[in-house]
């Protein structure tokens, strides 16, 4: 097993903060855009979806990390990473849905429609794969997943706010609908470039 990174507390905070702001999955890496544009219409829906994403990201990291380091790597199957991870994440989300439906119906009806959306969300797969690429230890991986989920949450909530403001404004006819949405998303994304370098320097 190659050397894994096991950062101290300060290192964990840096990982968390940079996952939220600097390496924001939606606004900097442009992953999970489909759900970002689709579900950010209303604040409560955006919040529900984000919480589901945080939960699924952490859960799938907790499952895929051991698979990578105790099953794939020792047997030289590192190249099977993508397919195995997709398989496991999809099955996991389905299982979560079944469990929720049985035991917490209220949460299921609130979160239920978002869970299938997350099943094949590229952001979730990206988090699990990047954790391995960056050789994070288990704890660091979990913190990174939490941060990525929180980053998604921040982006969703911010953009839901932007969209609610946009509804009041007069949009030129040719920009109505998706075009103005993409323009707004691009501007919000540009605003996040301001965070580049801030976090590392803050804690150094």
């Amino acid at each position, binding site marked *: 097993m190659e050397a894994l990174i096991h950062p101290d507390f300060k290192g964990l905070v840096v990982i968390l903060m940079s996952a939220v702001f600097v390496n924001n999955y939606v606004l900097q890496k442009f992953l999970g855009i489909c759900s970002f544009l689709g579900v950010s219409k209303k604040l409560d829906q955006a919040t529900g979806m984000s919480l589901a994403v945080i939960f699924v990201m952490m859960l799938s990291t907790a499952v895929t990390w051991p698979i990578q380091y105790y*099953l794939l790597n020792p047997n030289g*199957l590192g190249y099977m990473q993508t*397919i195995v991870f997709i398989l496991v994440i999809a*099955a996991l989300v*389905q*299982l979560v849905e079944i*469990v929720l439906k049985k035991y917490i119906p209220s949460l299921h009806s609130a979160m239920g429609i978002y869970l299938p959306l997350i099943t094949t969300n590229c952001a979730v797969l990206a988090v699990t794969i990047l954790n391995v690429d960056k050789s994070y230890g288990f704890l660091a991986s979990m913190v990174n997943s939490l941060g990525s989920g929180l980053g998604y949450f921040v982006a969703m909530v911010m953009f839901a706010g932007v969209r609610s403001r946009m509804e009041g404004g007069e949009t030129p006819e040719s920009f109505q609908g998706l075009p103005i949405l993409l323009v707004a998303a691009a501007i919000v994304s540009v605003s996040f470039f301001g965070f580049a370098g801030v976090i590392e320097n803050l804690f150094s």
Partner: protein
Amino acid sequence: MEGILFAIISVTAIGVICAVMLAVASKVMAVKEDERFPAVRACLPGANCGACGYAGCDGYAHALIEEEGIKTNLCVPGADGVSKALSELLGVAFEDVIEQVAVIKCRGDCSVTSPKMDYQGIDSCKAAKLLFGGTGKCAFGCMGLGDCAGICPNDAICLENGIAHINTRQCIGCGMCASVCPNKLITIMPDVEKMLVTCSNTEKGAVTRKECTHGCIACKKCEKECPVGAVTVVDNLARIDYDKCTDCGHCAEVCPTGCIVKGDFSGIHSA
């Protein structure tokens, strides 16, 4: 070779474990569905048109079972038959469905108006509407590119002489055509009505006249002559109040351009 074999076996094993886990979980933690749901759902026509106001037939069936006081007569395409079946199944009072039909408030075909451009763009009213307000001289009228005919689930709409016509005998009253018409020419009305203003142009009479000889010129003759005061001219366009209208047909007789018509608009469910 061994490497490939091991890879295949291990991935298959993971897949099988996941599958077994899901299968067991879905059996053990199965949630009982209301046993009435399949029966209620079977009564509905399954067009998923949304005329009832719910998201498809499944949504309406769920609402009927779970919520109190949902009326059984909301399914317009299903008409009385569906309403009766639902009422018997759920043990509530039967209510007559007001059958609806879609009608087009434009008769500006090739003989009375003409196009203002030789449109060769995308074959869709929605696209044509974006180009200088439509292809016809009259910006309010039917462009005859057939967005409505394309979405109609029952083939009730045909294109003839450059405009769309609705065969109300085929119309199930779902209202999908009304939602796609960019000029909002199609309205849904009870199929017992007989009178219809077949124009939607709200420009001044002289302007309308130049664009289309069939259009409403807002002369107010119908308003003055109507024996029950059911017709009013608002925004240069005659409008009929169906609560007052007695279907006497007098307005159609006096209308100088013939844009008010008397006809039989009974829908698919009328004998």
